[in-house]
């Protein structure tokens, strides 16, 4: 079978997701104009997202010129630089409610290193797991992986950004699961995870414990997260089958759902476009996953395969947890919905991830590290 030069199904899936996100913000800005009589904040989210998309796509295109052999070489430096940024954000970082998630650049513009760090972790784990077999046994590789991932997970949790921290951990674990592991090695892995989980729980801020407790027992915090989730469910449910559309949507313009442009964007989709729209978005994510799997299947090089597994896992974890959170099926963890949630660092990360998948696909025949 002669390989295509481009993974068309994959690219279409990504493009549709991005278009869906833009369409949602545009519709929300119209709803705002209709209800309030003037444009509101969704208008600026829409225009800013357009701008950020331009930057991200440009970066993704530049990545296409990257010599793929460099990826292996770059894995370690990228990881190192990103780790420095994670330390830096704890020192100079800004964020809401006393968190330190952003490295301020100018004005309200800044970067959120925990987003791009997901890619750094995927690269470093793939790098470690594909070190020469002759010199590194499987156990040593697993140990090295743990050593590489643990500091990042803890640094991000310290910001505190528990959601991103869990994504980093989850992605690494799923990558390890796809690596050759004996039962004993799986056991070791399990132990490391238990220790990490224990360490994180002990380091949780009271509000983070509250969030987990709120999920387990919504009665605990009726005005905080419990309230957010209820308003999010109301907004989602109110969309009905076809959605309330631009003229009927009220929850978004009146800001009933907190951070509906970011973490709770799925409830915005639900209100505007109803079950048809929400289900379409879920189907788009299913398309994304399968198209990623199809790219993966054509790859022969283990480094490349592991990277694609990592990227696919990242998308799945984020999409599933975010949507489940919006409809009250998982705790509020502050994980953005890939390609849809408003946020520059997040959008850039996912566009670069998609671009990476394309690079690996295009050059699969040459990939012999």
């Amino acid at each position, binding site marked *: 079978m002669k390989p295509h030069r481009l993974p068309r199904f994959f690219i279409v899936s990504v493009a549709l997701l991005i278009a869906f996100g833009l369409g949602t913000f545009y519709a929300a800005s119209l709803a705002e104009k209709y209800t309030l009589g003037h444009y509101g904040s969704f208008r600026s989210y829409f225009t800013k997202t357009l701008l950020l998309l331009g930057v991200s796509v440009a970066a993704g295109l530049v990545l296409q010129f990257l010599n793929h052999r460099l990826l292996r070489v770059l894995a370690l430096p990228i990881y190192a630089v990103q780790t420095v940024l994670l330390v830096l954000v704890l020192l100079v970082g800004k964020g809401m409610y006393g968190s330190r998630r952003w490295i301020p650049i100018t004005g309200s513009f800044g970067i959120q290193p925990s987003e791009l760090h997901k890619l750094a972790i995927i690269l470093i784990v793939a790098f470690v797991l594909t070190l020469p077999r002759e010199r590194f046994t499987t156990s040593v590789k697993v140990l090295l992986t743990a050593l590489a991932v643990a500091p990042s997970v803890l640094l991000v949790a310290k910001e505190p950004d528990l959601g991103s921290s869990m994504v980093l951990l989850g992605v690494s674990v799923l990558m390890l699961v796809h690596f050759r592991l004996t039962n004993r090695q799986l056991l070791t892995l399990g132990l490391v995870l238990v220790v990490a989980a224990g360490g994180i729980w002990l380091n949780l801020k009271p509000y983070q414990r509250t969030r987990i407790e709120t999920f387990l027992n919504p009665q605990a915090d009726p005005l905080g997260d419990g309230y957010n989730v*209820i308003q999010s469910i109301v907004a989602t449910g*109110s969309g009905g089958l076809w959605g309330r559309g631009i003229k009927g949507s*009220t929850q978004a313009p009146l800001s009933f759902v907190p951070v509906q442009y970011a973490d709770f964007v799925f409830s915005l989709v639900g209100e505007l476009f109803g079950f048809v729209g929400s289900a379409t978005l879920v189907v788009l994510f299913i398309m994304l996953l399968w198209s990623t799997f199809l790219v993966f299947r054509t790859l022969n090089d283990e480094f490349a395969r592991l990277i694609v597994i990592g990227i696919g896992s990242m998308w799945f974890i984020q999409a599933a947890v975010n949507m489940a959170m919006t*409809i009250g099926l998982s705790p509020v963890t502050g994980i953005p919905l890939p390609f849809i949630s408003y946020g520059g660092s997040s959008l850039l990360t996912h566009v670069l991830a998609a671009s990476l998948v394309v690079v690996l696909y295009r050059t699969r025949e040459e990939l012999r590290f």
Partner: protein
Amino acid sequence: MDKSEQSSQTRRFLVLTILFTVLLLGIVSRLYYLQVVRGDYYAGVAEDNRLRIISTDAPRGEIRDRNGVVLATDVPSFDVVVTTYDLSDADVELGAIAQLTGTKLQDLKNTVKNAGASPFTPIPVVRNVSKAVALQLAEKEPDLPGIQLVMSAKRSYPEGSLAAHVLGYTGEIADTELKELQDQGYVIKDTIGKEGIELQYESLLRGTKSQKLIEVDAEGKVVKTLQEKPATPGKSLVLTIDARLQKTCEDLLGDNQGAAIMMDPRNGELLALASGPTFDPNKFISGISSEDWKLWSAKGTLFNRAIAGKFPPASTFKVVTGAAGLETHVITDKTIIKCSGGITVGGRLFKCWVWPGGHGNEDIYKAYADSCDSYFFTVARLAGIDALDSYAQRFGIDEPTGVDLPGEATGLVPTPAWKLATVKEPWYDGDTMNMGIGQGYTLETPIRDLSIYSSIAMNGTLWRPHLLKSSIDAVTRTETQTQPAVQSTLGVSSSTLDIIKKGLNRVSVTGGMNYLKVGNIKICAKTGTAETGTPDLYHTWLIAFAPMDNPQIAVLLMYENSPYSRSTSMAPLVHRMLQQYFDLYGGNNGSN
């Protein structure tokens, strides 16, 4: 990576992708339930956004004296709240409220407007409505959409004016306070401590409001409660005050302007802290009449003289002068100075109070007993202004004592530089001498003056005066004790302090001061009579501590524009304070 490894990996990723797909389809099914099956319901909820948060004040913590006498507590009352979204015609419904409660319609509208709340948040517009009004309102409530009568609480001070200046009072949060405290969850019309302990320990007393997330129907009637978080009552406070001693102090002050304080010098616990005249804080809760306000303004009733009044310390300052003289070695306890009714410096006669008589030869002990001005004029002049200032500062006259009440003032230690800057005159020897007997520019607060004697009693250690003995968590019942803290140490040798104490003991057995006597307890005392600028009108002080060798209690009684022309006349009054203390507490403390 060989072929079999590769295909096994592919199989695993396929399994994972299928698993992902199934999970995402699970989300679709949940969406179907929320949006298609329950869609109409949620659309209805969203329509009026039928979710309301109702929050009710937490019971404010009680304030009790050290023996459990309740000084401040909450009693039930009713508030009227308005949910603007549910109003059908604001003028009609708010008009009805205005009529029933006797409030101006415009005021109600302003309250609603200024609340800045969402149309779905109930806003309290009238608090503490009377029972009669509450009953009428309850009857009309069904016809007044958007208006609700809710249970709440109002502050009550069962002992009336007792310890009013200590307790302070509560009131409705002011706009300026609200702006500052919004982050801490305060909202319009909230009750907040305004003065005294109520203000000082607002954060302990306040508690956390109850919150209820309810769903209402299109008319604003509650359909069901979705979530509920009960209120956390505020902490109860136990004060160091003993209501019986406090009562005595207030009786002694009567309608006079002045202060009376009783403190345990061993730990700084204030057993009584009274400022005269006093007032009934309940009036702040029910509303103050203009007559009351006029009267209070005229007499400075609300002013807490015990901690915020600044007065010339007069002869009570002589302990500072004595310490400065002894510590700088310009005198010893053997030094004899002759009083012939005054001393002449630079051709000017500085009169002793005994003039035209004279005290004759005085050592420091006799000088304290006679409160001889000639002696302390001389000591002040010998020590010099720098030494005098330095010791006045060591005794903390220009510093707060750290008492846990808002609004403590600090006294004044005049220096040559200060005089030049403020009075535009150089410092004269005469200023030093006047300062030596506590006249002139020096000012002290009563709490500071008592603290000076307390630190002398405790060989130089001042325990921070405080009123909070402990706080009790309403839920867990755990009691947090206030740990006594050392506020300052004098850095004056104990031999000097012993000499002063001996002198002060002589005071208590001289002449009319004999009336202080409580059993055979050795008492240290000092009087002071400050000129007011008006002839024959004085501020009079009497400070005492006892027992001399094992001090348990330090007391102060001070009258501003005193009914007495001699401070020694206060001895029988201070005797009552000491006698009652030893009657109540002396038994188990091994008084000598």
